[in-house]
C-alpha cells in the first residue's frame, strides 16, 4: 500500500516536472534553432553581468561568485569575476590572458578545457553550438523559456560533463541562464543579467 502511494506520488511529482518542461516538436525545434541562429548572426558585441552558483551535495551552502562577461565577435571574450575575489580571463585570438588577483599570465589556447569553454560561450552567442558535433541537442519549452539541452556524445567528454542546459527567454535569442551538471551530479548555474547587445566595448576591456 505504502509502495503504491509512494509510486503514485512519484508519478505525480515527475508528471509535474514533465509538465513544466515539454519537449518541442520537430518543427518547433527547427523554427527555434533557425530563429536564434539568424538573430545571433547580427550580434557584434555582447555584455552581461552574471551570478554563478555552485552546488555540491556535501556542502551546506552554495558557493556564489559574481562577475561580468564581455564578448566581441569573432574571437574576443572576457570573463571577469569581481566578487568575492578578482579573477579575469581573456580569450583573444587564440591566446588566453589571466589576471589572478594581480598575478598575470598568458598561455596559448591549446588547453582542451579552455578551448571547450571558449567554444561553448562563443557558440552560445552566435548560434553555432546547435551544430556542435560533440553533443546531442534536444529542445524543450515551458511558460517562460525555450531550453536547449546538450548531452556529450563521447564517454571522454562525459567524464567532464553530464549535461548542459541553455535557457533562452521567450522572444530573446541570447542565453539568460546556463545549468551545467557534472559527472558527479554537482551543478553550476550561471544567470545572466543586464544583457546588452551591440553596445560598443572599449578595447581596454580585453587587455589585462
Amino acid at each position, binding site marked *: 500500500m505504502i509502495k503504491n502511494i509512494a509510486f503514485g506520488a512519484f508519478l505525480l511529482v515527475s508528471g509535474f516536472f514533465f509538465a513544466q518542461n515539454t519537449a518541442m516538436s520537430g518543427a518547433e525545434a527547427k523554427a527555434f534553432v533557425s530563429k536564434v541562429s539568424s538573430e545571433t548572426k547580427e550580434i557584434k558585441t555582447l555584455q552581461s553581468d552574471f551570478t*554563478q552558483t*555552485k552546488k*555540491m551535495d*556535501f*556542502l*551546506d*551552502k552554495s*558557493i*556564489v*561568485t559574481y562577475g561580468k562577461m564581455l564578448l566581441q565577435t569573432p574571437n574576443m571574450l572576457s*570573463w571577469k*569575476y569581481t*566578487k*568575492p*575575489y578578482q*579573477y579575469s*580571463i581573456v580569450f583573444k585570438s587564440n591566446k588566453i590572458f*589571466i589576471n*589572478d*588577483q594581480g*598575478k598575470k*599570465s598568458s598561455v596559448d589556447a591549446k588547453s*582542451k*578545457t579552455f578551448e571547450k*569553454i571558449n567554444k561553448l560561450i562563443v557558440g552560445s552567442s552566435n548560434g553555432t553550438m546547435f551544430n556542435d558535433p560533440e553533443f546531442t541537442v534536444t529542445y524543450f519549452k515551458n511558460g517562460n523559456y525555450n531550453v536547449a539541452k546538450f548531452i556529450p556524445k563521447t564517454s*571522454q567528454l562525459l*567524464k*567532464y*560533463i553530464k549535461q548542459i542546459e541553455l535557457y533562452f527567454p521567450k522572444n530573446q535569442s541570447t542565453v539568460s541562464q546556463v545549468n*551545467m551538471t*557534472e*559527472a*558527479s551530479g*554537482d551543478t*553550476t548555474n550561471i544567470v545572466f543579467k543586464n544583457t546588452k547587445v551591440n553596445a560598443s566595448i572599449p578595447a581596454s576591456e580585453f587587455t589585462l
Partner: protein
Amino acid sequence: MLQFLRQSLLYSLILILAVSCKTYKLTEAKPVSSSEKMVENLYFSSGEDYVYKCQMDIYKNHVSGILIIKKLNETTHRVALTSDFGNKLIDFEASENNFKLNYVLPDLDKKIVINFLKNDFQQLLKKQYPVSESFENENAKIYLSKIENKSYYLFFSKNNLLKQIIYTKNNKEKIDFTFDAKKHIFADSLNLQHKDFKINIKLVQITETE
C-alpha cells in the same frame, strides 16, 4: 650506459634533495616548562563549510580555483577543488591514516599530483599534537611535537592563535604552513610552502563574504 645514466641521475637527485633540504633549527627561542600536554590546530574543526580562493603553484604551473574543506566527522575531512568556472578538479576524503579519492579530472589524474595533495592535506588537517618540548621567543609560544621521525613546530601568538606550523621529517624542513586568523577556528588566509619542492598553495577565505 643506460644503467649508468640512471644511477647518476638518481645520485644527482639525492644530492639536490640533500642540499636543498636544510636541517631545521629553532633560533632565538629558549626552552620553557609548560603544562600543555596537547596543542591543537582548530582551523578546520568546525562543521561549517570552509571556502577559500585557491592559488597553487606547482613548479611552473599555476592553478587557480576554489577550495572547499568540510569536516565530515571527528577524523575525516572532505576536500574539493573546483576551477573558477565551477567545474570540479579534484575531490577527496582525508583523515590521518586514510585517503579516499572521490573524483579527479582526467587531466590531473597523476599519481605524483594526488600524492602531494594527499600528504599536504593530511598534514594541514591534522588536529592534535602531543607536546614533546616547549619554547618561547619574543613573539610566540612554540610547541614541538615529535611523532616517530616527524617533528612539528607549532607557533602560537601571545593571544593563543596558531600562526605557523613547521613540519620536519628526519630534522629536514619539509613544509611551512603560515596562518592568518582572528578566530581560533577559522583562518582568514593560509600559505603552504614546500621547502624541498617548488610547490606553494595560497588560500584566502571567501566563506564570510555575504
